[in-house]
């Protein structure tokens, strides 16, 4: 990416940045980059996620770049950054909003998330009750274990969910 790209992109992304700022429960400007979030980040060591850097990118209006890089999906959502921030800023909340934006723009959302969404829409849960195998290789189901039958949600549920999901981010 050249300097020219950076400046021109930044100018055109003001609107995306403003949209995020409106949804956030804190001020972006409160972050003074003490790096406490990054130093305790679960995903920093293995996936090079640096929460303070994500904060700064948004401050600069580089939202498009963040979404297309896929970096927002490297967060483990352990929430240590939010817990430990001395400025009551939440990088994890910002990352969640950026993920919402990715979904809305149908860009870079991991396949497995889409599967979960369609399963919740269809049956209310992330998956059907599964058959499990014991250490002795015996097969079991909820029924054979004597567990009660699951009663799923009624129809109005999926209508509601579809309506909400097709709305704007956040």
């Amino acid at each position: 990416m050249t300097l020219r790209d950076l400046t021109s992109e930044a100018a055109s992304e003001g609107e995306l940045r403003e949209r995020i700022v409106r949804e956030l429960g804190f001020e972006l400007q409160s972050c003074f980059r003490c790096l406490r979030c990054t130093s305790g980040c679960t995903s920093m060591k293995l996936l090079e996620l640096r929460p303070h850097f994500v904060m700064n990118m948004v401050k600069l209006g580089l939202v498009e770049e963040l979404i297309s890089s896929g970096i927002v999906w490297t967060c483990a959502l352990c929430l240590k950054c939010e817990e430990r921030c001395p400025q009551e800023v939440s990088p994890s909340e910002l990352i969640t909003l950026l993920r919402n934006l990715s979904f809305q723009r149908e860009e870079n959302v991991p396949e497995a998330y889409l599967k979960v969404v369609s399963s919740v829409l269809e049956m209310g849960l992330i998956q059907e009750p599964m058959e499990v195998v014991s250490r002795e290789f015996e097969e079991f189901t909820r029924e054979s274990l004597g567990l009660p039958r699951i009663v799923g949600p009624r129809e109005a549920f999926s209508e509601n969910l579809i309506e909400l999901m097709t709305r704007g981010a956040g």
Partner: protein
Amino acid sequence: MEVAVYWGCMIPTVEYAYELSLRATFPRLGVELIDLEGVSCCGSPIKSVNRLAADYLALRNIALAEETGTEHLLVPCNGCYLSLSEALHHWRTDEELQGEMEKFLDKEGLTLEGRMKIVHTINFLHDIIGLEAVEKAVKKPLTGLRLVSHSGCHILRPSKILDVDDPERPRKLDDLIRTLGAEVLEYPESLDCCGAGLLLSHPETAVSLSATKLRAIQGLGVDGLVDSCPACHMMFDARQETGARAIGCKLSLPVVYYTQLLGLAMGLDERSLGLHLNQSPVEKLLERAQKTFP
């Protein structure tokens, strides 16, 4: 005492050992569990694609639970515990959201009062049932067992909303284990995340994280790891072998739910606690427990 229980997705669809052991142990502490019908996903994975939809999912489950009339809503899964607590906090503090949600809940014939206290297995046992009552239910103390605990992220943080335990130094699960007669060790990695949050986007990294923590625990020479979240448990128990391959080491650490350990101390049958369903080598732990208390 009657308590409504919201199981979430993972416990009733795959982590049957948690459900079995909770159903086996709680009645012995005088707790009658009331199952809910029509409940859905708590919203946890949905939050990443749409925050508002996640709040709706959580709130509709709370509204369904309110119909039971019980004071507490027991949520044994950490992820669900956070989702429900967070959505209720949003609902209580955001009038606009309240109005919005009312419309959607109404279409399902639901109303939300927001009066229930949401509790997790750990603070329910520690704070409401109490250590004394738990101790009284112990028939076979687990003396001689040396264990470590993993509380998990989503009952500790963010502490401005959640109040299960101290976010930087949780002790309640350790106290609960000690009450059963076992010894508990503190260890530097106790707050490390299990990695389950990365399973949908970076599965290899997810299992590397859980395996790295397991390797550190194994190095302590303890008899096992005790947890109380279906997502963390799946990472440490069912994915132990996959994780070991990912980081290139051998892992064979028994991993049990606290409710399974509690059941053992109550003298309950292993199968009734779902101990045959754990994928980690829990025999080692069971043998040790047997030796110290035949």
